[in-house]
Each structure stands twice: as C-alpha cells, then as structure tokens.
C-alpha cells in the first residue's frame, strides 16, 4: 500500500441481512491494511459514527463508500443520497445493493401484505399484537410530531436510487473480490465508471462438470434427485442458474453438487437477468407440444419468479409484481 495520506472510508448497511459486512471482515488480516489506508468515517455495524457528522462534511470528501443493502425506507433513501453526495466513489456492495436480492422478493407483495404478514399473521406476533398495531410514519405526541422512516411499497436497488460508480456483486461478495476492489481503488487503477468489478463470464466457465448439448424433458427440485457429480446439473434437470450467472465464485455451489442459485447476477450487457435465464432454459425444453411444454414448466418450475429472479427481481425490467388497485 502506498504512503499517500489516509483516505476516508464509509460503509453503510441498508435493506440487507448484514452478510456483506461480514464478508468485508472475511478479508482476514488484510482488514488491518484497510485500517492503515483509510479513516473509517462511518460504519454503523462496527464503529461509532454519527450521521450528522457526515452531513457536516464537504461534498465528495469521502473517498470510498461501500454501500450494501437495497432501499426500502425513506431513511435508507436519504442515506443513499447523502453518501452519494459526500463520496467520490460509491460502490454497490453485494447482491442487495446491486439487484435487490432476497429483500427484493418483497416486491412480490405490497407494503400492506408485508405488514399483514409481520404484524398480523405471523405466528410469533399474533398473540402479542391483539390491537393490530402497525408502524406509523407519523405519531402525534404532546411534544410534537414524531417521524419514523416510511416503509416503501417497492424495494429499489442502489442504482435505481442514486448514481453508482462500481458494482461488486454476490450474496455475499467473495472476500477476495472485495479485496481486489479495495486494492484497485487504493492504487487508483479504477475501471471505467459503471463497471462491475469481477470477471465477465458465467459460472459455467468455472464449473468443472462435463457439458453436452442440452435437452430438458423434466425439471427436478433439488430434493427429488441426487445428481450425478460429473455431469452438468442443468442437463440433469436441476434448475442450475450457472449458465446466466456471473462467475467469480469458483462455482462454489455446483462444486458441492448443488445448483447455482444465481447470486452474482448477470454478465455485462445483460439487461434482465431473469429473462436471460428463462430464455436460455426454456429454449432447451425438449418438446414442441404447447401442452407438454406447459406441463413441464408448471410441474418443474412451480415458482418461476422465485427461480429466475431470486436475487434480481428489484433490478429487473418489471421490478415488482403488479399492484392491484389501491391498498
């Protein structure tokens, strides 16, 4: 690492599970080098730091912000805007920030449905919430109006909210990739703005299984068969997403006989990950009979959105399920 003056680093966590934060720590002792190179100005998960300190900083005074998580609330949106303004380089870290990830699957429901599940129907909440109390964005108190963040109907990705400089995909991103990115930034060897930091091939490239021409007559769920360890999982009817998913993980899942679930999202130039994946898979269904095709799909892929958009629903062209009338 160079002897340049220390840079300023911010890490922030919006709608996500927190795994990405752990992934940052998973660079092991290299984290010390990070501390050498950066002053950490904000890292709510690991260090003290106040938002208003950030607000007071001059624009573009943070050198690097690693932002993980999607944008689900007004507070998260505010923070995204704030950190964008204050940072020279804003990196969307991990699947949630990149493409919405699992929290993005909440886009299959409306806010009301989400709240119903959490506050009304959930087995743990039902006995404890007889009055059906719901989060309120505004509460009138004698002292004045209190505000809580508004929970949005739709989860958005970071890039749908603010301009993002670099993307570091994965659920979570591999520690090595995080380190590579940090090194690149520290050394000033930045790829063109908007790049995804990683390779531009798919998981198949790193997968050692043998592949043939593909013809799929039936899809299996993972619990239905024990797949052969040598052959391409998709050819065996397992819905392996590796064909459409950006490499970089070393084909971790297929390596342990489990199909890729697509956490890295698509390659450069792929506009809608799920569409690419379903197009590829549908193309090799081995039938020309519309009824049979329909049957193969409905039996083998009962949850197409969950299958093709497990990580990328929020970043897809359609972004969410159609809302029906007003809430």
């Amino acid at each position, binding site marked *: 690492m160079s002897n340049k003056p220390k840079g300023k680093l911010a890490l922030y966590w919006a709608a996500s599970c927190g795994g990405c934060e752990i992934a940052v720590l998973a660079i092991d002792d290299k984290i010390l080098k990070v501390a050498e190179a950066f002053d950490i100005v904000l890292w709510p998960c690991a260090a003290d730091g106040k*938002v*208003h300190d950030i*607000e*007071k900083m001059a624009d573009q005074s943070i050198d690097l912000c690693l932002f993980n998580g999607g944008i689900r609330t*007004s*507070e998260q*949106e*505010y923070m995204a805007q704030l950190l964008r303004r204050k940072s020279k380089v804003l990196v969307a870290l991990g699947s949630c920030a990149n493409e919405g990830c699992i929290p993005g699957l909440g*886009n*299959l429901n409306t806010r009301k449905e989400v709240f119903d599940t959490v506050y009304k129907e959930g087995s743990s909440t039902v006995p404890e919430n007889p009055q059906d109390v719901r989060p309120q*964005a505004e509460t009138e108190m004698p002292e004045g109006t209190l*505000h809580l*963040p*508004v929970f*949005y*109907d*739709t989860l*958005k990705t970071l890039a749908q909210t603010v301009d993002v400089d670099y993307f570091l995909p994965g659920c979570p991103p591999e520690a090595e990739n995080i380190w590579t990115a940090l090194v690149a930034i520290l050394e000033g060897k930045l790829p063109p703005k908007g790049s995804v930091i990683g390779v531009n091939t798919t998981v198949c490239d790193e997968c050692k299984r043998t592949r043939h021409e593909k013809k799929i007559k039936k899809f299996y769920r993972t619990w239905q068969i024990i797949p052969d360890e040598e052959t391409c999982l998709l050819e065996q009817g397992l819905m392996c997403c590796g064909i459409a998913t950006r490499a970089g993980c070393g084909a971790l899942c297929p390596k342990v006989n489990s199909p890729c679930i697509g956490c890295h999202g698509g390659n450069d130039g792929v*506009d*809608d990950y*799920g*569409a*690419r994946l*379903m*197009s590829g*898979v*549908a*193309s090799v*269904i081995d*039938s*020309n009979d*519309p009824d049979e*095709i*329909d049957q193969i*799909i*409905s039996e083998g*892929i009962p*949850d*197409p*959105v969950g299958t*093709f958009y497990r990580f990328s629903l929020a970043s*897809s*062209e*359609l*972004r*969410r*399920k*159609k*809302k*029906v009338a007003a809430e």
Partner: protein
Amino acid sequence: MENFEPKIVGFLCNWCSYRAADLAGSARIKYPPNVRIIRVMCSGRVDPTFVFKALADGADGVMIAGCHPGECHYIEQNYKAMRRFSMLKHTLDAMGVESDRVQLVWASAAEGQRLAEAIEKLVSDVKRLGPLKWPANWQEDESRLEALENIVKEHAEAMEVPQ
C-alpha cells in the same frame, strides 16, 4: 376507461406474420391502430427481455407473432419461441400481469385476415383489462417525498441543539 386506447407492441417475424400484416394492408383490412409493429427475423429472436422492456416502458400489451408451428422459415425456430412464451407466461402470471396482455399468434404470410383478427382480439382483450401503467407500479406515493423532507428537516433541527 371508455376512451382507453391501449399501446401494444407487436414483434412480428419477417417471413410470415410481418408479411401477413403487409397483406392485411394491401387488402385494406381495417383493424385498430393500437398495435405498433417491430420486425424481427424470426419469432425465435424474441427474447423475453423484449416483452418485459415493452411493458416496463409503458406498453399495455404485447403480441408475438410468427409462422405456424412446423412452417417456420428457419425450419423449427418458432418452437423455441413457443417454449419461451410458455415460460414467459408462467412468469408474467406470477408477476400479476394478466395473461391476455401478452399473446402469441401464428399467422402465415397468407393470413392477413387472421392477423387482423388476432390484433382485434388482443386490442379488445387489453381494453377490457384496462391500462397497465407499469412505470407507475413502482412509484411510491406522496408520503415518500414528504418523509424525505422530514428527515432533512429533523436532522437540521437536531443539529441546532446546543452541544
């Protein structure tokens, strides 16, 4: 809703259905002007992304049209269109997009009338379903802007508190 004129994007294969549309024109068969046609070489070229993009960009419906099964100019590529369409339908269904909004039509170069009827059906189906307005689907309501302003305001107030 009475005056709702849906916007529909049609992806028509160069060899059969685009020519069917040409024939409908030459024969002066009238059909609703709502379908706007994009020519592709084959229905097999139609990528589900096209359909998603059209809907996301404000289309109320989509038509995919190609040669009849077994009559593809490229021998069998319309079967691939059929497979993808089936997958697409399942997905759209799960996304809450009514299945009549996206229709797959087979029309040979000789079937101007058939294509016109299919367009007519699609348009009337979509009219019945009403506007899709997909872009509005992910826009938040007014409370969002208000909430954002509140945060800015409250933080400013908080900053004023003497240390």
